[in-house]
């Protein structure tokens, strides 16, 4: 936690942490406290802002709201699909890149750039391909007798945002998987080959288990990404629609609070989301500190 060797100074350390602490208190802790507080109040007068303490009414209301549970379901489907799709594709590509003797770093360069693309921009890239009127993929699909219109078809809308979100995350996962694969001692794989294991068997019995710390880490990061960082994809591409088919939890918080002006309900949703983040962080902390490992 700290050094054996430290400096002595009465006020300097406080001066050094002051900017960070000031920003943290003003823009993180205070608003989070506000959200906690608002979650147990209900605004009684929109114009004066008067509010009444309502205990856990907002939460009760939330958990009895079928729209909320729809959103929970949407979020889980979306997160699971994005995580599995982007991790599987990345692992596959990383295994291939680890196998080539020449050019692995070139492939890395050519695959790394989507990491730098904003999620919203990624959404727009894919939106343009599937745009009902001008998109070339939607055009081809229509030609093949499979009309694609994510503006009206909820499943198709979901598919589109999953594609966009997963596409952006592949490069990130690829970098980690490749690093993880390259850290596995080749002698282990050679030993397994001499023991008579074929390539597929070697992968599942040697490589994949040794990659488990990386995989677990990426699992948590991807879930967090799918839960929170994909807000902009939803906002820019589908606005939660059609008919709530892509109304993710983070989008709903924003929509209910900023557009619907339901402060108490939105705050209650914030609190639930915070609980999810805390859980994910704790899980990540405990497992990664101790390493899912040998």
């Amino acid at each position, binding site marked *: 936690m*700290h*050094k*054996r*060797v430290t*400096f002595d100074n*009465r006020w*300097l350390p*406080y001066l*050094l*942490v002051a900017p*960070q602490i000031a*920003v*943290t*208190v003003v*823009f993180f802790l*205070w*608003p*989070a406290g506000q*959200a906690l507080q*608002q979650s147990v109040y209900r605004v009684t007068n929109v114009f004066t802002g008067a509010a009444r303490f309502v205990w856990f009414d907002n939460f009760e209301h939330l958990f009895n709201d079928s729209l909320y549970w729809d959103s929970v379901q949407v979020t889980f489907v979306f997160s699971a699909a994005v995580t599995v799709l982007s991790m599987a594709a990345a692992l596959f*590509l990383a295994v*291939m890149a680890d*196998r*080539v003797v020449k050019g692995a770093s070139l492939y890395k*360069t050519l695959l*790394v750039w*989507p*990491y*730098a693309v*904003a999620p919203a*921009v990624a959404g*727009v*890239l894919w939106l*343009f391909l599937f745009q009902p009127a001008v998109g070339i993929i939607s*055009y081809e699909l229509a030609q093949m007798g499979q009309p694609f219109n994510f*503006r009206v078809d909820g499943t198709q809308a979901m598919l589109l945002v999953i594609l966009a979100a997963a596409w952006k995350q*592949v490069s*990130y996962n690829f*970098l*980690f998987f490749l*690093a993880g694969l*390259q850290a596995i001692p*080749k002698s282990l794989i*050679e030993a397994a*080959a*001499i023991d008579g294991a074929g390539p597929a068997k070697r992968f599942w019995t040697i490589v994949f288990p040794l990659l488990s710390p990386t995989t677990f*880490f990426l699992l948590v*990061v991807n879930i*967090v990404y799918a839960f929170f960082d994909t*807000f*902009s994809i939803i*906002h*820019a591409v589908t606005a939660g629609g059609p008919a709530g088919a892509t109304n993710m939890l983070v989008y709903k*918080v924003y929509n209910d609070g*900023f557009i619907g002006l339901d402060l108490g309900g939105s*705050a209650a949703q*914030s609190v639930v989301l915070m609980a999810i983040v805390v859980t994910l962080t704790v899980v*990540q902390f405990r497992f*990664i500190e101790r390493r899912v*490992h040998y």
Partner: protein
Amino acid sequence: MAAGTAYTPPAHGDRPARPAKRRTRATPAGMVENRRRSALMAHGVLILGLLIVAFPLYVTFVASTHELREITNAPMSLIPGDRMIDVYSRALLRGSANLTSATPVWFMMWNSLVMAMLIAVGKIVISILSAFAIVYFRFPGRMVFFWMIFITLMLPVEVRILPTYEVVANLGMLDSYAGLAVPLIASATATFLFRQLFMTLPDELTEAARMDGAGPMRFFVDFVLPLSRTNIAALFVILFIYGWNQYLWPLLITDNLETVVVGIYRMLNVGDDNADWPVIMATVVLAMVPPVLVVLVMQRQFVKGLVETEK
């Protein structure tokens, strides 16, 4: 982008996902399968993967070189057109044709640049200072501060968006560069990265410097900063991208200072039939250029930094 929200635990002991240094690959005589064929197959799969990943970008670029009628007249051509200079200068200097008060894209890019730089530099500065205090001093309240910083990991802007907006509004920081950047510059991730780095600097170095007469700030300037240089560079790349790609926050608090990512949304939000596709697509390409360039130019530091930051 996970650097802002995902927790980064300090690493202890072995770190499995660190990129190995250049390995020499011996070819063991005992390996059974045909290596040549397997390498060829791997190249094939990788090239296919590259093409799929690059395809949306290619189509976008092609669209930014045509006029609108060629795009709306489906199917759009997949060969670049000749209107590139015209479309890009229109985007940069005027903005989307179908917005009543169009912002020229150069100004959006400028706003994005200012925000990204403020966030990247701001985060690095306040994080390195607080990490230095926490590692190199023992003072009452040290652990309290540490946990306060730690908690920010658990509060992504998306979940505390309304109250944060109110705070910024009350401080009169709406539609300002300060309002864009300051609420986003507290970063537990960067603080932990620096803490971790400082823990690896040998104690004897500090002692030798103290023997030579260096006080804490002198030590910070003469030792901590130069020895953190590569990590600062890597972190800068990650944070620059984080800042440039911000969406929800600038969307909410800017009016005149819209960033390019938000600008794209506003151009799109006029309805599918009114969208000025060539200009939108040109803006998309322009919005991607700075962060992608930063990543490609600083790829080595960035990959190293990323894998270390997140682990």
